[in-house]
């Protein structure tokens, strides 16, 4: 077990936490950059995904700092719910769910073609990939604890 901040990490559990945190801060700062700096207004589903990603960036930072590998119990549900919203958003964006049922009556459309960065990568897919990667890393840090 690795409880101290300077002990080695033979099972790679801390590294997995660190990886999850890295993804969360890149995603959080990325969302802030697109929203606040580039001025692209987040749609309502984007807001809901932010509500799950931002706490992950902070919670995992503290967990990494304290080498607290029990954090998956708190962080994994956040990542899973965020992934669920991102999946819904991605299906909407891909047109697999009709736009009529989307809960975005005001503000920018969640299915609009403008939901991309640099006109290339669709933001809902990026969000889904980030949440899934965080969830996987957290899950791996959990299963290694059992073995």
């Amino acid at each position, binding site marked *: 077990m690795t409880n101290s*901040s*300077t002990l080695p990490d033979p099972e790679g559990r*801390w590294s997995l936490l*660190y990886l999850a*945190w*890295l993804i969360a*801060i*890149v995603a959080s*700062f990325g969302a*802030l*950059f697109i929203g606040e*700096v*580039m*001025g692209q207004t987040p749609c309502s589903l984007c807001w809901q995904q932010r509500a799950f990603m931002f706490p992950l960036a902070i919670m995992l*930072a503290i967990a*990494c*700092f304290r*080498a607290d590998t029990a954090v998956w119990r708190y962080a994994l549900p956040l990542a899973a719910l965020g992934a669920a919203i991102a999946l819904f958003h991605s299906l909407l964006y891909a047109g697999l769910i009709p736009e009529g049922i989307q809960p975005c009556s005001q503000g920018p459309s969640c299915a609009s073609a403008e939901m991309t960065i640099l006109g290339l990568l669709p933001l809902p897919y990026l969000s889904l990939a980030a949440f899934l990667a965080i969830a996987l890393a957290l899950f791996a840090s959990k299963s290694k604890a059992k073995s």
Partner: protein
Amino acid sequence: MNRRGLVIATGALALSFFVGGSVAYNAQQARRAREIAAARSEALVRSHSPVLGPPNAPVTIVEFFDPSCEACRAFYPPLKQIMGLFPNDVRLVMRYAAFHDGSDAAVKILEAARLQDKFVPVLEALLKFQPEWADHSGPVMEKAWARAKEAGLDVDQAKRDITRAEIQTALDSDTRDSKSLEITRTPTFFVNGQPLTDFGPQQLYEMVRREVQKAK
């Protein structure tokens, strides 16, 4: 480096990337805005636009303006103050960027007021009572008309005038120019052809002061 050091360094690095990226992005946007304004300077001032202040003033402020926009309303008093500080040197050319629902109708009231030489009082009335008629749940143009009437507009005449083709032509031309100049927000200001890239009343004042000094 121990883990705690790595965590702190990572956080600091991420933050500095964000701040550095923001600074670089804003600088690049400002450069782009200047290039667009320089390349399409003919789209900035058109002869049909309302002009406030001395028509031959050496310094021209161009404002892309929306009567329903809260920021334009908030900017009006400092703008008037700036004009008042340089009464002989600055003119304001108003271009319409009717982005909101109902803005078109409000612009037409303004244009009709201009025909009656009541542009400024009606503009000030529309801005003053903007929260009343430019409601977010939908514009209430009757209220705008009522306030314009209080400001001295002959409403019957104005309602005949707003159907004139030249008003629609002017509005269309402003819309075309705001597209070609890539105006996405109101108010957007230009001083002697250069965009105000750092938004704010103080920044506008500084820019105008510099141009006035240059002209002297």
